């Protein structure tokens, strides 16, 4: 029941936004800003970058509003625009996809129970510390759920590059988790 009501409100807002109503645009922004900033955070290095992405993303959402034909959830449509905008942001700022070579020497293992204790903020910090190329591929594959083929199409890198970036991203994240756990245990002990 709540969901239906929410959907009705959003549909109405979208309709009024298409008509160019300023108040509706502001309401729509308030409705989704926090969620979308959460998406942008995963692709950004810090809050400033994330808010830049959010700003560009919302301007694009309002520009392309007429293209949204009500097929599928509006939130999903908006999210896709944010994600594509975030990747575009890196392309513009020449930070895109530089491959960082890693020493494949350290075999790392993460204790799942310990990892499960990490909260969202910790994981967010870990993702933000990744090199942009790793961060984008890991986000698209692990969180957004795109295939390597789709990632190749979105980012312009090859499928193979997407696979290797993903596995390197995981390796870096595992190392960082172990470090973080070590610190926590250190603090506790």
């Amino acid at each position, binding site marked *: 029941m709540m969901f239906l009501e929410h959907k009705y409100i959003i549909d109405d807002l979208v309709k009024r936004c298409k008509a160019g109503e*300023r108040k509706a*645009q*502001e309401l729509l*922004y*308030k409705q989704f*800003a*926090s*969620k979308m*900033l*959460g*998406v942008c*955070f*995963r692709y950004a290095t810090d*809050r400033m970058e*994330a*808010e830049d992405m*959010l*700003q560009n993303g*919302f*301007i694009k959402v*309002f*520009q392309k509003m007429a293209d949204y034909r009500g097929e599928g959830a509006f939130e999903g449509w908006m999210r896709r625009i944010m994600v594509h905008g975030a990747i575009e942001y890196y392309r513009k700022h020449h930070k895109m996809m530089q491959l960082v070579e890693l020493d494949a020497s350290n075999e790392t*293992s*993460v*204790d*799942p129970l310990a*990892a*499960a204790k*990490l*909260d*969202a903020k910790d*994981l*967010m910090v870990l*993702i933000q510390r990744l090199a942009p190329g790793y961060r984008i591929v*890991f986000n698209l*594959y*692990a*969180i957004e*759920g795109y295939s390597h083929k789709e990632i190749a199409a979105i980012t312009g890198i090859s499928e193979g590059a997407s696979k290797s970036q993903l596995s390197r991203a*995981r390796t870096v*994240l*595992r190392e960082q988790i172990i470090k973080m756990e070590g610190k926590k245990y250190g603090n506790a002990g």
Partner: protein
Amino acid sequence: MEMPDNEFDELFRSKLNGFEAEPSANVWTRINAGINANKRRKIFVPVLSIAASIIVLVAAGILFFPAKENTTGKRNIQNKVTKGAGTIIAAQKAIDDKKPAILGANQAVKQNKADAHVDIAEVARETKKAEDTSPNQPGETQLAVLKDAQLSLAPLNMKQHVVPDSGTVLAIKLPMKDSIPLVVRQPQPAIQSPAIANQDASAKTKHKIHSVGDLVNILVAKVDKRKDKFVEFTDTDGDQSTITGVNLGIVKIKKGE
């Protein structure tokens, strides 16, 4: 104990997918400004296109109208040339410049439009002086030559003031001494019958560039291979050209050949 990749990914997905963060207050202000900037640009585009079309129209006006005005202006000047004072003053300048006679005279006339408008009264005064100082005999022959020239100019639509009143003709005498060759050469193309003169003009159009019109003709001919060109200029008064044909596909205008 190693965590499988899919479980590792799932850990991040479950914890970060619903992640929310309150944006700073100024983000909406910036978005709002961005939307407005876009709207302004959308309004600005038609304004630009209107401005562009006005510029095109004005440019067309400048290209077409002065061409006509110059033609009549030129005729007037040429009439005055036959009248006398203008030619001689202008021609002497041209000789000073050592330019080819006809072209030079024309140019000189252009440069000295003011001189061309010499007051008849002034001319008459000069005439008296001339009569006092110079012998009459050579002047008379020159007058005869000039009359010849004027007569032959008559068929070229130079109807106004073709035959000058005696005062003006006399006025020619004094400066004429130096410029006989020019005065004789000036009307030369006019001695031929109008038909031949016309042919001459069209031949010129094809081979030589004398005016902007010729240049445009050549450029148009390069692009437009139809018989009736997009725009066609014809030399009418020596170096002055007017538009004699327009072909816009549907609309065709062609002045009588």
